[in-house]
């Protein structure tokens, strides 16, 4: 067996388990070890990744806004995350007098759990999925929906009107954007015919040896439904992650910092960490569904390819964050329910058309593209027209007003 860079992690894992078995350790201990190794490695690597991302985000936004950003601690301010971590650890942990102490303590713990758990489902490289279930895409959404509850606990337990407002905004926003998020992921599942992320990534891999950049042409993004699905999925995901311009749940200028107003020190850092870890996990999911996952040119190891794709997507998010102002609550809701959701539903119809039409020859392909475009482009134009430029008035309800 030759050790390769691509499979190095997997081989090291097998080697450690082999040594453990040779030492005559009991079966339950080996089982426990086989479970613990991926957990420890994923948490160590991606928590380090998180620290680096906080630095990168500040640097990128500074560059775009014509500032310097962190540049005091270490070369280019690279050790800023370390300084921030020490600061967070040594700060006083303030708990408001009216707070529910148990829940106030519980919320930052609960918010981190789903953010880390979802990594078990992601194919982080060739043969590198910790839990390879039949329904991993759906399970990803199910686990990440728990973070809604964590934000509610945080807002409720703080006993502060700003926290409560932030929590309510967060819940409303996450519920609204979960629909376009799941519907945006659905086309990829439909075409591949499996909810297993590994199978979806494989379907986008090179179909023959020596294809350009490891089968870049097979990415789901290069189809009409894939393009629309990816854009809907990406926007809904950014809202789900509470990232700017969808960060009304925090809204520093309106409600101080929303649900984590009353958190200080390391508890605040945990909220921050959960947000970044979810961002990385979401980018990995988006890459796996639409950008070919770990498939890449043969000279790069598969996990590095996925890392680069994650970085690319996160860079786009930083770019959007530093250039767009925050949305208003009503704009946010209208965008989800009146634009993204209908578009995602029509996109599913287009996916069905694409799936049924033959695509063997060039002429067939042109027909399939034309059919999909005929469905999607008028829908987009119609939705853009219906949503465009209406001033908002105060709403009145026929039956629900008291």
């Amino acid at each position, binding site marked *: 067996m030759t050790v390769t860079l691509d499979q190095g992690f997997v081989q090291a894992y097998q080697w450690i388990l082999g040594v453990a078995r040779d030492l005559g350790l009991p079966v339950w201990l080996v089982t426990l070890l086989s479970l613990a190794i991926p957990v420890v490695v994923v948490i160590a690597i991606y928590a380090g990744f998180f620290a680096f991302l906080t630095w990168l985000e500040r640097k990128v936004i500074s560059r775009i806004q014509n500032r310097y950003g962190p540049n005091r601690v270490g070369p280019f301010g690279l050790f800023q995350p370390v300084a921030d971590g020490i600061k967070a650890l040594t700060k006083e942990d303030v708990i408001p007098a009216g707070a529910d102490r148990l829940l106030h303590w519980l919320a930052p713990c609960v918010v981190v759990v789903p953010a880390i758990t979802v990594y078990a489902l992601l194919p982080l490289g060739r043969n590198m999925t910790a839990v390879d279930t*039949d329904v991993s895409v759906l399970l990803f959404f*199910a686990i990440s929906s728990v973070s809604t509850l964590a934000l509610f606990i945080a807002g409720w337990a703080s006993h502060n009107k700003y926290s409560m407002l932030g929590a309510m905004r967060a819940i409303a926003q996450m519920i609204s954007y979960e629909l376009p998020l799941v519907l945006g992921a659905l086309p990829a599942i439909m075409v591949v015919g499996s909810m297993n992320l590994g199978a979806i990534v494989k379907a986008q891999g090179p179909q023959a040896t020596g294809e350009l950049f490891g089968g870049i042409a097979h990415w789901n993004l290069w189809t009409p439904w894939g393009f629309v699905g990816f854009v809907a999925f990406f926007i809904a995901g950014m809202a789900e992650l509470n990232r700017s311009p969808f960060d009304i749940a925090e809204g520093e200028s309106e409600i101080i910092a929303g649900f984590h107003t009353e958190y200080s020190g390391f508890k605040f850092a945990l909220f921050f960490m959960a947000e970044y870890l979810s961002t990385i996990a979401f980018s990995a999911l988006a890459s796996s569904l639409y950008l070919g996952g770990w498939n890449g040119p043969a000279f790069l190891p598969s996990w590095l390819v996925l890392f680069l794709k994650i970085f690319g997507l996160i860079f786009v998010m930083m770019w959007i964050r530093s250039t767009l102002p925050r949305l208003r609550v009503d704009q946010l809701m209208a965008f989800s329910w009146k634009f993204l959701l209908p578009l995602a539903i029509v996109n599913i119809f287009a996916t069905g058309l694409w799936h049924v039409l033959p695509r063997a020859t060039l002429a067939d392909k042109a027909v399939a593209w034309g059919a999909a475009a005929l469905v999607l482009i008028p829908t987009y134009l119609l939705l853009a027209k219906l949503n465009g430029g209406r001033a908002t008035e105060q709403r009145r309800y*026929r039956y629900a007003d008291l």
Partner: protein
Amino acid sequence: MDIAQLGFVLLSAVTIAGALGATTINDLPRALLSLVLFFFGVAALFFMLHAEFIGVVQVLVYVGAVAVLFVFAIVLTRARLQATEIGRLVPSRVLGILGAAVVGAGLVGVVVRTTDVPLPAVAPLGTTAPIGEALMTRYLLPFEIASVLLTAALIGAVVIALEDGEQRRSA
């Protein structure tokens, strides 16, 4: 006792603790979190049975939707100000206890009458695809009826939240 049995016992303990907490804790948000723990326990038990799809749906529907519905109810009704005592016996609680007793008796009856179920010789390869196939072939009619019902409920919700054009014009 092997690891699987140990896991089952631990999960069952967590599930039952969650259920007990949900019914006995007086503070509504805490009771809700206890209920969420119970939902997770049930989902984990489904996973132990290799019914992954049902386990996922359990989390997605009960934790992702039902629990959040409770959250909205708590937030919008200011439950903290109107916390009621659990111990008092009001008519609605008596009805609730009766209903629970009937359902419980039915479940116990089923459990008692069930004999050992013979396991298939070969473990099924995933349950998601067979469920999808069954829904699209054998159970298509019930599936469609359920979707019509849900659509009707959705339209009803929209009607309730409808903007009142006439009132706005007169205002």
